């Protein structure tokens, strides 16, 4: 049997400041026996910058990747970064939805001898691929070292949940919570799981960004989380690298490790922290590894009703 191979769009962040996401993704792919084949000569998706300044070139920039992927015979591409995922998905969708726009983008592509027929490529986020193709049952089976005793907050951020609920709810996504539970850990209650990390605001108005990410870390800590698990390199960068600045500004002392979900999967599969790119994070994440228990924690007994409590109303038969 040959291993399933996916066309893969890693994005710039994974090659630069968040190699840990790339390393852990590749390690987990090897362990689970599927292949990620990089799209030949892919280019930057423009992040949140290009679309806000020059719309048509922004669509064309993204469409070059879709066209090259389609030319290679791919019908789907897997994307680990939320911003890349949004831009690729949005370009494909808008080219189809607004034919006038689609025509203009193809006129631009023709200058580079390319053409893209919207709808050819299905753009998929890496998390969705794990949940739907690999499946939680298989991950549970393959978890040689389940993450017993860990309480993890599933942080989705913006661009996977919104604007299109491609594979989960926009307000209350649960895919990563279920994944965390399948790995043997407990999903922490986390009301701000889709609250924005601030994106590029750290560069533009730092106090705005620090307030946003402070709220997220605070909320995860209130839910008793040992770490936040994320699926986006920008979210990881902001929450991890700027956590110290936020602590200073708000006079707090949070030390909340920020992991990628692929690192959590890798740990459960029995891979070593080194193979999963641990050590790049600003807030030490080894504390999480050390906390993994040998046995599942005892199930909390449901609390008994107090004898002084008022009687419960009884429904008539």
């Amino acid at each position: 049997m040959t291993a399933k191979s996916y066309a893969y769009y890693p994005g710039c962040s994974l090659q630069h400041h968040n190699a840990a996401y790339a390393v852990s993704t590749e390690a987990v792919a090897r362990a689970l026996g599927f292949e990620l084949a990089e799209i030949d000569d892919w280019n930057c998706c423009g992040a949140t910058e290009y679309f806000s300044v020059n719309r048509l070139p922004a669509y064309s920039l993204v469409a070059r990747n879709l066209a090259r992927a389609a030319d290679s015979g791919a019908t789907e591409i897997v994307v680990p970064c939320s911003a890349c995922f949004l831009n690729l998905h949005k370009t494909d969708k808008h080219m189809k939805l607004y034919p006038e726009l689609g025509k203009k983008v193809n006129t631009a592509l023709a200058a580079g001898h390319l053409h893209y027929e919207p709808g050819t490529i299905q753009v998929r986020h890496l998390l969705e691929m794990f949940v739907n193709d690999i499946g939680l049952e298989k991950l549970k089976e393959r978890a040689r070292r389940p993450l017993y005793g860990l309480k993890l907050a599933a942080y989705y951020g913006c661009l996977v949940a919104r604007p299109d609920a491609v594979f989960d709810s926009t307000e209350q996504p649960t895919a990563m919570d279920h994944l965390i539970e399948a790995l043997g850990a407990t999903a922490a209650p986390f009301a701000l799981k889709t609250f924005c990390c601030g994106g590029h605001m750290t560069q533009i108005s730092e106090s705005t960004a620090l307030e946003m990410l402070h709220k997220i870390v605070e909320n995860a800590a209130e839910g008793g989380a040992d770490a936040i698990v994320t699926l986006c390199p920008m979210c990881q960068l902001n929450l991890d690298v700027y956590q110290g600045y936020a602590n200073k500004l708000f006079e707090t002392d949070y030390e909340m490790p920020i992991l990628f979900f692929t690192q959590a999967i890798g740990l459960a599969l029995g891979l070593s922290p080194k193979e999963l790119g641990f050590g790049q994070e600003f807030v030490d994440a080894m504390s999480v590894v050390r906390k993994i228990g040998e046995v599942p924690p005892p199930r909390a007994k449901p609390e008994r009703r107090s004898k002084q409590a008022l009687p419960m109303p009884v429904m008539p038969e």
Partner: protein
Amino acid sequence: MKEMTEPTFYDRVVDLTPGGEKLSLCLQCGTCGGSCPSGPDMDHTPRALFAMIKAGLDDDVLSSNTPWYCVSCYTCTTRCPQQIPITDIMYTLKEMAIQAGRYEHPHAAKFSETFIGLVEQRGRSFEIGLATRYHLFHHPQQMVKLGLMGMNMMRHNRLVLRPKSIREVDQLQAILAEAKALSAKESHV
């Protein structure tokens, strides 16, 4: 019979935004502003800005800091009961403000432009180039802090010192040049 008139400011915003015609459906309910994580820092909530667009207050709209504080999180867009593509309208307003030379938040525009410049040059983004160019030119007083941050990033093995390039930069640049030419035609219509 209706007379042919110059497109109004409102018409231009609608024309430049994919799905922009939904702007006419705004109920002024304020769900957008209430949902916005950076709303407290904005001069006007998106709702107020939309009323201003309809009232033809071009100058006030283009000089508002609101679009520049948009973090592209799309919370307003998904919650809008009328399905107005609010985030995309914010992008249109930024684009129009840059073209009119009327933006109140120069940092944000310069950050985007610096980022784009590097991508156009090599086809990939490059953090060191971005950080040094953007901060050096726009707030050099921050360079010490930035240097410390850079050293920390380096210590954690999170900075790539040499920019990466795609192989067929020519192809990308030809596509972008064509798109820009089309774009220029569009805004003159």
